[in-house]
């Protein structure tokens, strides 16, 4: 008997389907074993390495469509790039992103939400990143620059390429931060496979993104770092700031290992790059505007 083409295809499809199902559906009662990360000498998951987020959170931590520019002005048919950023064209536009805020809504108090909008409206003069200021936490972790974790039994330290920002994570709580700082005071401990960092002692001068999302000096960030595969850390940051938000809220995202053989942090001392912006007007001979 000669099989029609349609029959052959049907058999192939059925077999392929069965194979696919057997690949995807776990045998009942058997979970795939959880990933077990390599260990440091003291037995904790090894987070050493160079990591980087691969998302658009630094543009706007919430879900957003593309925008013409970070700084806008009214055009006859809707917003167009502000004069100061016009020359950048498409390079100066804001890429769209699915957001990293769980549930997408940030529970701002009404007056704080008004401030957020004000920040966005006055973007160029307000975002601390424009002036190469230290980025704060968690923003440092999802800026478009790599960072390096140095983890030993005695220390946990994070160096960021952006602005040469650094964080020493205390493994023993030294008590409340005696001074406020841009990067906060970090105190870490292990909860099984997860490294948890409590960050307090912030100033009110850092933001969460280029969309004006901000906080007060009452900010308390709880970060959770969990390795989920050889090249991924699942990262969570719970944001608690009763002066700005009605309740705590959470961001989460994967951080990816920079797997290039020559991956390393390079210099991004942007202080030098903003001197013309910040001090150019006081040159003996100011450059033409």
């Amino acid at each position: 008997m000669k099989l029609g083409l349609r029959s052959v295809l049907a058999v192939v499809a059925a077999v392929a389907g069965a194979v696919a199902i057997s690949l995807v559906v776990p045998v009942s009662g058997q979970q795939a074993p959880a990933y077990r990360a390599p260990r440091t000498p003291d037995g904790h998951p090894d987070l050493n390495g160079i990591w980087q987020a691969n998302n658009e959170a630094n543009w706007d931590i919430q879900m957003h469509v593309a925008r013409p520019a970070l700084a806008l002005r009214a055009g006859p048919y809707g917003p167009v790039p502000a004069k100061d950023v016009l020359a950048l064209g498409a390079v100066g536009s804001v890429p769209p992103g699915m957001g990293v805020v769980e549930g997408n809504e940030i529970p701002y108090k009404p007056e704080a939400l008004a401030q957020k909008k004000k920040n966005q409206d006055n973007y160029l003069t307000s975002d601390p990143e424009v002036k190469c200021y230290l980025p704060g936490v968690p923003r440092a972790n999802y800026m478009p620059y790599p960072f390096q974790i140095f983890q030993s039994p005695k220390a946990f330290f994070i160096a960021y390429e952006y602005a040469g920002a650094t964080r020493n994570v205390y493994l023993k709580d030294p008590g409340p931060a005696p001074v406020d700082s841009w990067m906060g005071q970090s105190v870490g401990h292990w909860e099984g496979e997860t490294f948890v960092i409590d960050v307090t002692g912030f100033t009110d001068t850092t933001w969460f993104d280029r969309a004006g999302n901000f906080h007060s000096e009452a900010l308390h960030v709880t970060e959770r770092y969990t390795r989920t595969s050889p090249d991924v850390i699942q990262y969570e940051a719970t944001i608690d700031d009763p002066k700005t938000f009605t309740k705590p809220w959470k961001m989460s995202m994967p951080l990816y290992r920079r797997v290039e053989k020559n991956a390393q942090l390079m210099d991004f001392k942007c202080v030098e790059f903003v001197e013309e912006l910040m001090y150019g007007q006081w040159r003996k001979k100011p450059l033409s505007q």
Partner: protein
Amino acid sequence: MRSHISIAIAAAAALALSATLLAQSQATRGTPTARPAAAPQPKSTMNPRTADGHPDLQGVYDLATLTPLERPPMFGNNLTLTPQQAKRLEQQVADRKEQAARPSDSNRAAPPIGGDGSTGAAGNVGGYNNFWIDNGSEYVTVNGEKRTSIIVDPQNGRVPQVTAAARQRQAARPNVPTSDQQEGTDPGLERAPGAYDDPERRPLGERCLLGFGSTSGPPSLPVLYNNLHQIVQTRDTIMILNEMDHDARIIRMNAEHLPSTVRKWLGDSVGHWEGDTLVVDTTNFTDKTRFRGSTDQLHVVERFTRINDKTLLYRFTVEDPATWSQSWTGEYTWPATDTQLFEYACHEGNYALGNILRGARQRDAEEAAKKSGNR
């Protein structure tokens, strides 16, 4: 006579020390091949080790010391101070600090406008009082002896004379920032033409690009304040945090230098172990780092050795044939401290740089007004 005895003792001590280090390094150098990698390493509280068997250099260190980089000429070729000399000099500093810590006279007059003409920061108008200054209370002790200078080679404890070419180069570009420029050594508007024209002409410390006085290194040198440095050690990288300006020096172990096209403010550092000594080789500096007026060909080799459970010996050799006709070497100890290291956010609070330039423009305007008034 006394100085000759001191030299002899110093020389003998140096020989003894180098012999010890050599013996240690040779002893350890032979071991990796003779012993399986996973074999237990010797453990002692005097010399803590990491899991991979190397000396554990981790901790926070306070580099402050009264010993200057360069030896005051009065000590000639004498590397060491007698215990009496050291005691007297340290007491002088303690007395001065005690004096400065006393309550001020609440009825004192204001300092004269423009400062009192002294060389202190801003002409002694109150830029830095005792509160700010944290440059140590003791001279460095190496091998049981107090030192007159950090520089041990050349013998006179001074940075070698610069080459004729370097002198020409530096004369052609006066008042150009260098990574070792000290705080408060500004020559002033009248004496440094052009130095206040542009931000790029201001000292790197003032611009918050690097700490002043080569605190960031390499070589890392002690300065007036903020002398803390933290070392974090992992298998593949060793990180040295400079308190000022929160610069993390990342030393890649057993790696090759970056291509010469990549330049870094603190250079590119690669490290390896020679026995129990961490050797860090740094090249690829920017042409804006200019340690003591050197070029981007500057080459620094640093050697970190743990000498007891609280102290590292830091030794460095600097060379740049375009600047000095010979290399030069310094050494001093890094004592561990329990002091907490805080964020040195320099740029974020840098009102000084803008105000300095603005002040200079104000002065320009006043000069111009005077001239047009005289016409």
